[in-house]
């Protein structure tokens, strides 16, 4: 009974599944959401994933080996949820490389001392499902497409985190402990998945500074010091709030109990000053264009080089 209680102590996670090759939520076979079929089921951070521009992100994952793709991690945060995102490699019906994405969203309380463990289990679940569903979707079997269309692929999107073996590829307890110190963190991610909305790199300082040239990076998690090293002035340490005599509802939260994203969904708290906004925009567009050019050039080089080797 004790074991059963332990399992029940963990929150449930709702999953999403994305892939290509079937027409489920879009009238094409391009990368799209398979689960849930009904967008009304999506909430909070779940909805944020719907607005991602997938092209360049997926392109950057295709050249990677299966293990490298599976090693990419991204956890996004807001005041009340965390969302873990995982990818896995598969093949379409023509045996061309394809990708599967799974997410799992968990309602969280930032004061929960078990938050690191919950995160580790959420990461484990999204990662395990991505790998499992990559096998299931390999070759786009007809019966799987039928089940997805008829909404019988899963009996429920809700999974019990209590049954998961926590992910150990990162020290999630330390990661979360570091995240809770800072105001303005939208998520933590390996460099390739930063475009999903995270602003902290799960990697080295070198990787973070390199990624900063393409994405908004405000820091990185230093695995050696088990702390977040800040790379911009957009992150602010949470200050203990003065204790009012009669706390308002908003201030009932303990003095130091952060919800890293204090502004609206997925947006960092920092905004450039209005005068400089258009300059920043232009610079960002320029940077993006150069990045795309570099990316295309790199891809061409990577494709040409093996050809040369073969010859």
């Amino acid at each position: 009974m004790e074991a059963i209680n332990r399992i029940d102590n963990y929150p449930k996670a709702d999953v999403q599944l994305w892939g290509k090759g079937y027409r489920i939520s879009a009238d094409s076979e391009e990368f799209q959401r398979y689960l849930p079929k009904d967008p009304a089921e999506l909430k909070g951070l779940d909805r944020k994933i719907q607005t991602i521009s997938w092209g360049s992100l997926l392109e950057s994952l295709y050249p990677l080996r299966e293990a490298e793709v599976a090693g990419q991690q991204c956890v996004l945060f807001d005041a009340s949820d965390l969302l873990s995102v995982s990818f896995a490699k598969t093949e379409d019906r023509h045996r061309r490389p394809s990708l599967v994405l799974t997410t799992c969203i968990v309602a969280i309380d930032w004061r929960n001392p078990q938050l690191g463990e919950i995160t580790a289990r959420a990461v484990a679940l999204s990662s395990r499902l991505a790998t499992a569903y990559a096998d299931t979707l390999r070759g786009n079997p007809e019966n799987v497409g039928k089940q997805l269309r008829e909404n019988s692929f899963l009996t429920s999107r809700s999974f019990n985190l209590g049954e998961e073996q926590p992910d150990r590829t990162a020290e999630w307890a330390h990661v979360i402990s570091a995240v809770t110190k800072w105001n303005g963190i939208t998520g933590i991610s390996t460099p390739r998945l930063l475009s999903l909305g995270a602003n902290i790199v799960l990697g080295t300082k070198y990787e973070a500074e390199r990624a900063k040239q393409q994405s908004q990076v405000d820091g990185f998690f230093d695995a050696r010091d088990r702390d977040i090293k800040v790379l911009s002035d957009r992150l602010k340490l949470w200050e203990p709030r003065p204790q009012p005599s009669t706390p308002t509802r908003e201030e009932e939260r303990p003095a130091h109990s952060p919800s890293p994203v204090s502004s609206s969904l997925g947006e960092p708290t920092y905004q450039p000053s209005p005068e400089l906004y258009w300059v920043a925009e232009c610079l960002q567009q320029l940077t993006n264009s150069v990045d795309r050019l570099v990316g295309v050039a790199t891809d061409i080089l990577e494709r040409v080089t093996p050809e040369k080797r073969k010859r």
Partner: protein
Amino acid sequence: MKVDLHAMLPAGEWANLQILNQTPGMMADKNWALFAKAKRIRDGGKAAFIKFIVAASPQAGDTTLLVTSGDRLKDLYERLKHIQQRGATVPIVSLLDIQHTESGLLIAMEEVTPLRDIIDRGEAYHLSTKILRDLDPDADGNGWHHFDVCPNNIGLLPNERCVLIDVESFYLEAEGKYNISVPAWKPFRAPRGLVVAVQVQLGTGRIDRSVASRKLRFEVALAAAECVLGPIPLTGQNLDRPIIDAWVANADATDPAVVFWKQELLAAVETAIFPPLQELRERLESAIKSELEPTGAPLVQLSSLGSEPLEAAGVVTSVLPSVLPQSEWFKEWTLVLPMVHALRAGRLTGKQIIEYRQVLQQLASRHPSQPDVWNELLLVVISFEKNPALALSLVTEALQHIPDSDELIRMRNIIQKWARERRHGSH
């Protein structure tokens, strides 16, 4: 009726579905069921065994209709749903999914290792007391019955808990009785007196609590005896003294567990009754212990390695004696095997690893010519404790007893290099 399990099972819930062609048992023999293995994607990704009982057509024969008619499958579905709700309070394999459709009944359960396989491999000795403990109907209150307990229908879960499989034979008590819908069992595994008592009651379609308990005790005890004595010789006749004599004749007469089971079985075939299983288990443990105590120095008690974490880790501790004799290396090594597995599964805490190493050291002092114990010791010290000085001392000691072992010589060279590097690194 052709059943396509691939189409029937939600692909998001099940992975790696493999249809099995042959499994033992009545259902497979009569083509009444399809069997498959799969990975359950939910619940942490457990390996599962799937049985799909095909609903009989109304034109089927009487026997087929008795077992697989639509009505029977509906009743079975209801019964299994109730059993599923009881969870771990009854000793049945976890029922992961139960679906009833017009085409039949699908039962998905956690995959187990059948006790029959473990007995056939000669590796079940340590499970004798465990079966008496885990399958004791009197342990957690009455209220359940399995009508066909035998090594084919007992399974060992990955956490080493013994559970009952063949879930269609599992019943919950209703008003002091069990409604046995399909009275399929193995009367040749019971003495005549018990068979008669059961058959008389089956005439009414129900057996009462006392007969059910007597039958269950007998069948569980017999399976526990097979763990020590090996498979019972089948003659097709009811169990009697000559069968017991023939069975025990192949076992080691100096083994206290063999002596114990011989006495108990001979008494039980005469009376057709086994005592309560807890009493039986305590006497078996005591017999093993008292036989072993006079020899050798006491070992660290494995059961004292922190009972709570070890229980949680599913490590068998009940049969491990507090002392080990100087002879019978194989039996002693068998007793340590659960710890071997627990170590590799990462289920031991740091403190337990140290205590496990101490047990191995004492085992090595008793059996210094056995390479297995040295190899295990070195594994613990090198990979888990990461102690080069101790590893060097142990491998040197091992080589004094087994000087020609190339493996140990190679290990010593590696450990020496490691110890040197560690020394230089620390300065």
